[in-house]
């Protein structure tokens, strides 16, 4: 039975629960918007990285180079799109 619950994945799960609870503090504690957003950005991206490495085994195959490159490229283009859109549609829209 024990072999079905590998330490790495159990620890990963516990850590992801902790991250979620930290994120929830934003709701339950009183904090400024800037602090809250910082907490959320940190917990969300850590959580995503955790899933990617611990659960999705992104680094285990012979194609890890292509996989990581693809994800990095995707995340960069995604962030450029989100912030570029905000820039053009809200912050810089007269």
């Amino acid at each position, binding site marked *: 039975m024990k072999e079905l619950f590998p330490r790495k994945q159990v620890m990963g799960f516990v850590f992801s629960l902790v991250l979620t609870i930290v994120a929830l503090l934003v709701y339950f504690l009183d904090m400024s918007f800037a602090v809250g957003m910082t907490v959320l950005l940190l917990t969300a991206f850590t959580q995503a990285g955790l899933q990617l490495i611990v659960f999705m085994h992104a680094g285990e195959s012979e*194609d890890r180079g292509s996989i990581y490159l693809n994800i990095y*490229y995707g995340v960069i283009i995604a962030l450029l*799109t989100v912030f570029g859109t905000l*820039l*053009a*549609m809200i912050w*810089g*829209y007269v």
Partner: protein
Amino acid sequence: MDFFDRFAIPHPSPVIYASMVAIALTLVAIVAGVTYTKKWGYLWREWLTTVDHKRIGMMYLISALLMLFRGGADAIMMRAQTALPENTLLDSQHYNEIFTTHGVVMIIFMAMAFIMALMNFVVPLQIGARDVAFPRLNALSFWLYFWGAMLFNISFVIGGSPDAGWTSYFPLAGNEFSQSVGTNYYMIAIQIAGLGTLITGINFIVTILKMRAPGMKLMKMPMFTWSALITNLIIVFAFPVLTVALAMGTIDRLFGGNFFTTTDGGMDMLWANLFWVWGHPEVYILILPAFGIYSEIIPTFARRNLYGYKSMVASIVLISVLSFVVWVHHFFTMGQGAMVNSIFSITTMAIAIPTGIKIFNWLFTLWKGKITITVPMLYSLGFIPIFTIGGVTGVMLGMSAADYQYHNTMFLVAHFHLVIIPGVVFAMLAGLTYWWPKMFGFMLNERIGKLSFWLISIGTCVAFFPMFISGLDGQARRMYTYSEATGFGIWNMISFVGAIMLAAGFVTIVYNIYYSTRYASRDISSDPWDARSLEWATHTPVPDYNFAITPQVNSSEAFWDSKKNGHKLFPGNYKEIHMPNNSGVPFIMSAIFFVLGFALVFSIWILAVIALLGIFACLAHRSFEQDHGYHIPVEEVKETEEKLGGARQ
């Protein structure tokens, strides 16, 4: 009868009724012809169910040529209408419809299909592979594109054409101002075709990354394969944006959503934003394969290897990132402040740098080369000056302050046609002529080909240069007519003459295909151009399995090395070859997508639900299916190779 009213054309005209009759007659003729010659079985077995990348490439090619003429007919009508001031050949509604369908058909259904045609046929051969990574998905891509194109093209006889421009900006494209189902066709047909394109993107990235011949490192890939890799990368990251934008537009139009409306918080500018987040990378999706084709053709006919291979690769990689950060330049005048416009102005001008590097590399490849002037080479040489003019005027448009003068004028129309025609159309025609012998086993006639080139290149200049002038004089694009006092008449008349030359050029291409099919020699070698990359190393016609023995590569021009430096390209003996099975599911599933699209366009919900269930059933079938392909035994490989003229070294 109320149910059928929705299929009526809102703005009928004799031309449209004539088209209906023509379409009906063509369909009857096709069905009768195939039945009479008893070719249904052949059609189904060899084409509709095929998963062979070469045949899929050919089907893309035929579709692209058909769409070229469909879009070209629109173009001629447009230029004819504006050739004279106060012309009444077309009314404003009809004019709106044809400039909308001209844009969509040419970009989505002609240029994209042409690129897919050449990528499909050439890339697996160039990297020494047996097929693409997912042959079944490749067939699905083609059929989704095909049925999407069909859905879009029936719009002008059933329910009415889209008429809000190829960009379909909201609120014009919203229900309030576009009441016919035309814009529904736009939203849904492009969605279906776009799905196919996305699948191709994934398929080719994996093919190129994982299926290259042994020894072909990334930096030893032929330049066309490099450009295909980067193009598909851009496809994978750009097309989902279009998917979302179209879905939001569909929700607005069919379900009363409030994304792009002018009430309840809707934001019409968000459509323009999302459209161009996809739209600008799309420009590079079109142009990069063209760059790849020129990078194959110029070294072949200059008898020199490509100058600056590494800088060529670096520049397309740079373009793949930069192409995603310039989109706002399409709407500098539509509400952003000076800060945003400056940022996007700078990124826009920056993208001219890698493009410039490529131009210089081609020029340096030509420098001191032993140039032979063939038709593909003519197109490549014609491309450089015309494209540079188009590109430089693009930098002018990219300066946001100056753009207030050029925006939405004929100047812009001149710019992007002078980029897209030499950049995409010339490249595709060059590639078509270049790879034609590999595809069909005979060469296209050079004399007629040269005539086509001169007609098309001079026609392009005559048609589009005058628009720079009329645009700077203030002629807005998409105007269906203008008064004589504006003085635009003369420039538009010259454009019309150019358009006729272009049309004549395309007709000579069709004549060339006909003439060469009848009279060209079938006795050509498998390498008629004395070329440099792997696709010329196998037989003509290419056997199903492409290469009997997997080629061994140790340079970026392995085939050239095998011809000149004694490199042994095909070591070892024949082995059993594993091949994928044909399947009818991609065709059937895409046809159901067509039904779903049709049902959504006309809000026939029951049919839509049935079609969705059909698609679901196809997916379920695929999940449970066990298909391990089949094997070609060694004897059969040997036999085929001997029939095709002996084993390859």
